[in-house]
């Protein structure tokens, strides 16, 4: 039986990293365009972040500081697992603090803290093609992107309004990048779309199973699709975070008991902890302090 292999820094061999970096460069050169790449089999299942992991593995260096979040939290199981993977195969420093990270790999959320020029945000993407559920054939959607034929996308939004009185897409809300390609921002809630626009940071998107990489370079226009008379709107929450009192942030609903008791807390756990460390207090903690 053959000797089991020892692994290269960050697991992928250098040839593969080079291949992925070339794809990343192409993606940056054509913002929002999906670059096909030869996605490798990774030690975690397809659909569980292999695209994001391959991008991170291709760009990470010994001096990087890595943060991994899922649903905005550092401590969800998949984020823990991916972070542990990179600690094992790259031995890099890891952090939960957004401001200290150089690479942030994320699933379904953009951190609340504004990102900076030296930071890279790596998104995990399940279905990269924004037109996929309108047109299942890849051969057709490729043509539509090449010919900038996005009428079908607006038909979908029109139908939403005709049927529901409003656009019914609440996450993976399609955007137009640098005025040319329509892109799927990954299943982040539409609440996060404005954060992609003119960001100081580099945004990379990896779809391992579907074998596509795309990118939004820093300071790129990212505009959510809408109609003039039905403009794009973010979600609003009625109350601030019950733990830290933050407003204008995305909140998670937590069920407290079986009588319908519920509360809303920051989805971005680092943001919440940071605020509490600086003395901000939300309604729930204030009540308990009083008791």
């Amino acid at each position, binding site marked *: 039986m053959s000797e089991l292999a020892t692994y290269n820094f960050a697991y992928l061999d250098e040839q593969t990293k080079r291949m992925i970096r070339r794809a990343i460069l192409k993606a940056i050169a054509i913002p929002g365009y999906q670059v096909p790449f030869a996605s490798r089999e990774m030690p975690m299942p397809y659909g569980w972040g292999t695209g994001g992991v391959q991008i991170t593995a291709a760009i990470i260096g010994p001096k990087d500081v890595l943060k991994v979040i899922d649903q905005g939290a550092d401590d969800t199981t998949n984020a823990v697992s991916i972070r542990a993977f990179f600690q094992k195969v790259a031995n890099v420093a890891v952090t939960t603090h957004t401001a200290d990270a150089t690479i942030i790999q994320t699933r379904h959320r953009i951190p609340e803290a504004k990102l900076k020029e030296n930071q890279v945000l790596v998104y995990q993407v399940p279905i990269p093609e924004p037109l996929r559920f309108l047109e299942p054939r890849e051969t057709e959607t490729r043509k539509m992107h090449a*010919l900038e*034929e996005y009428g079908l996308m607006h*038909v979908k939004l029109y139908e939403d*309004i005709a049927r529901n009185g409003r656009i019914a897409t609440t996450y993976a809300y399609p955007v137009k990048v640098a005025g040319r390609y329509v892109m799927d921002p990954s299943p982040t809630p539409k609440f996060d779309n404005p954060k992609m626009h003119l960001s100081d940071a580099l945004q990379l998107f990896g779809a391992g199973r579907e074998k596509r990489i795309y990118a939004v370079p820093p300071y790129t226009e990212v505009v959510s699709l809408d109609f003039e*008379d039905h403009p794009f709107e973010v979600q609003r929450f009625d109350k601030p975070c019950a733990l830290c009192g933050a407003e204008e942030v995305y909140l998670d609903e937590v069920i407290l008991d079986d009588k319908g008791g519920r509360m809303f807390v920051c989805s971005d756990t680092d943001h919440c902890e940071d605020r509490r460390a600086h003395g901000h207090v939300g309604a729930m903690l204030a009540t308990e302090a009083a008791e």
Partner: protein
Amino acid sequence: MSTTPLLKVKDISKFYGGRTGCRDVSFELWPGEVLAIVGESGSGKTTLLNCISTRLLPTTGSVEYHMRDGVYRDLFRMNEAERRFLMRTDWGFVHQNPADGLRMTVSAGANVGERLMAVGNRHYGNIRETAIDWLGRVEIDADRVDDQPRAFSGGMRQRLQIARNLVTGPRLVFMDEPTGGLDVSVQARLLDLVRGLVHDLGLSAIIVTHDLAVARLLSHRMMVMKDGQVIEQGLTDRVLDDPREPYTQLLVSSILQV
């Protein structure tokens, strides 16, 4: 009346191995003119239509179109992007089976509005109003705007298909047996509608049909096809009232006199 033809078709032939689809067809089409291509099934008329409208690549021959900027373009030398754009804006294609020319799972309003959205229209209210206006012009009730064509009768679907094609103000419309499969009374109503629209909008049209009555009602000129070739052509009234070729005489005399 314009002095330049809208469409110049030269020596179009389409062969499938040893079989002839159509052969050596040439003609010119003028703005505002309606041409009927008439023949029985297997005559090659649909093949010809598909070649002229670039849905099929002919074996030989050329088709030149007079663009809005005044230049003649050889359609088969255009790249796909240009051809697709032309098909969406300056042309229409009405299929025999309306389901082939509509999105069946999307509302009537969206079907009509799609081309407007495809060319950059971004005001929902305006798109919807334009769609309702067009539905009215093809005699579909405004309150059906949010219904899907799946719920429409054959005649209504066909009228919807026509509205979908005309909303961008095309100059040339191709029609493949537009009344095929419809009840006689529904056909009559549809033909009346098409005749009115073609006249009001100054459209050019090429209509393939096996039904001489359709040709009589709608077209200025007609071509009779048999076995892939044009055996007679001329002004519609002349051809139908005074057919010269034996085959044409046969066709004309076969119409039941009721």
